[in-house]
């Protein structure tokens, strides 16, 4: 696989709170230089990063209902609409994991459907936080995501347990006959890590190590 192709899968991610605007700017310039898919940030910085990405094809991923996801569907829709209004191209929202654990699938279904609608033609990614789920739950929530028309089901926020290639594979197998794809986030530090996830079926990589991944990639 060509470096350019890998770069086009990267959501260049910066969600740490203790950084300054210069750091955010540098992340945006890297994203433009390497032609990453998006920069992934907290929504309040969308307005700021827009100017650094102007004229490029790099999108803006907003991390929403982040990182706990314990919000009503209405609150999530509010935040999605606000993020899109400000310029988000991708909406990565944390699902209501408690409801999933309680098998209240109607809660998950409702929030996914409402968010899908609110996202319109933007990219919608459901974050399922695999570190808290067993295999049955992962399969179930992937099915819910595909039924709701999610563009991606995403492994993790990156703030809790890291996903493994085996988990990415389970998600890929569950989703392979649907139009929903797998985004892996958390724990990828270099080209080897990224390759394992791509081999498992991931087509989007949420990472703060995008530059290291591309620099170390062997075509």
């Amino acid at each position, binding site marked *: 696989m060509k470096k350019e192709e890998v770069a086009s899968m990267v959501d260049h991610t910066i969600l740490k709170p203790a950084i*300054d605007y210069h750091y955010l700017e540098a992340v945006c310039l890297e994203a433009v230089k390497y032609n990453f898919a998006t920069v992934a940030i907290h*929504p*309040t*910085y969308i307005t700021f990063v827009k100017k650094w990405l102007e004229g490029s094809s790099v999108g803006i991923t907003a991390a929403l209902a982040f990182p706990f996801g314990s919000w009503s569907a209405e*609150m999530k829709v509010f*935040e999605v609409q*606000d993020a899109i209004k400000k310029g988000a191209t991708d909406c990565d929202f944390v699902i209501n*994991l408690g409801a999933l654990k309680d098998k209240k699938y109607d809660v998950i279904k409702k929030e996914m459907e409402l968010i899908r609608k609110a996202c319109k033609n933007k990219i919608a990614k459901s974050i399922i936080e695999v570190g*808290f789920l067993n295999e049955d739950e992962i399969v179930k929530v992937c099915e819910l995501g595909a039924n709701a028309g999610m563009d991606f089901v995403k492994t993790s926020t990156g703030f*809790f347990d890291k996903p493994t290639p085996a988990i990415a594979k389970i998600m890929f197998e569950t989703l392979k006959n649907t139009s929903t794809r797998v985004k892996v986030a958390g724990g990828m530090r270099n080209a080897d890590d990224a390759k394992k996830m791509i081999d498992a079926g991931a087509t989007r990589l949420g990472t703060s190590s995008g530059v290291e991944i591309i620099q170390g990639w062997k075509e």
Partner: protein
Amino acid sequence: MIDRDVEKKLIAAPIEPDITEGTIRKFAEDLNQYDYYSVIVDEYNIDLAFRLFKKPRIGLIVSYPLGGMTTETKVRLTEIAVERGCSEIDVCPNYVAIKSGKLKTAKEDLEAVYKAAKNKLDVICVPQVGLMTLEEIKSICDMCLEIGIHIVKTNSGLNLGKSEKEHISYIKRLYGDKIQIEVSGGVRNLNQAKEFINLGADRIHSSTWKQVIGAEN
């Protein structure tokens, strides 16, 4: 032995990514045996918390713990807290703006939240002392007082740094009784809680709250 003074100052929070109704129910059964101060939850669980916890002091987290939600989202959450009868909100300010010296941006954001609260509940600002320099902590506290916020909660957990004794002493020395201090982040047992209280902390927020009030060793 339960320390009655610390017990009254206890803040507990059933907040986890995978928190279920059953977990919160169990949490409430345990906590309701004690004379705690308040309980903090996320938006989806406000109504459940009012049903399950014995005290009507329920707080809502706002842009917790990372501070990166937009002002509009923070305001909407604050309005919800007011509508549902919450007694407090724990709000994380725009840390990136503060780290960048853009204090006006950070203040406007926090002030919008304060206004949305309409004096109907306590607005508690989280300066995230584990990630901030002493100068930045002072900027945040000054900003709070200018806006009308008189309570800070030192940290928000999630491995974002610990509260050290020097942080409490520092805020206390600069502001005396003008700012109430809730200590959160790294308080694990009764001894630590007492140390913080002796330095001037008004309340203690901990996930190991049974150890903190002396109900368990």
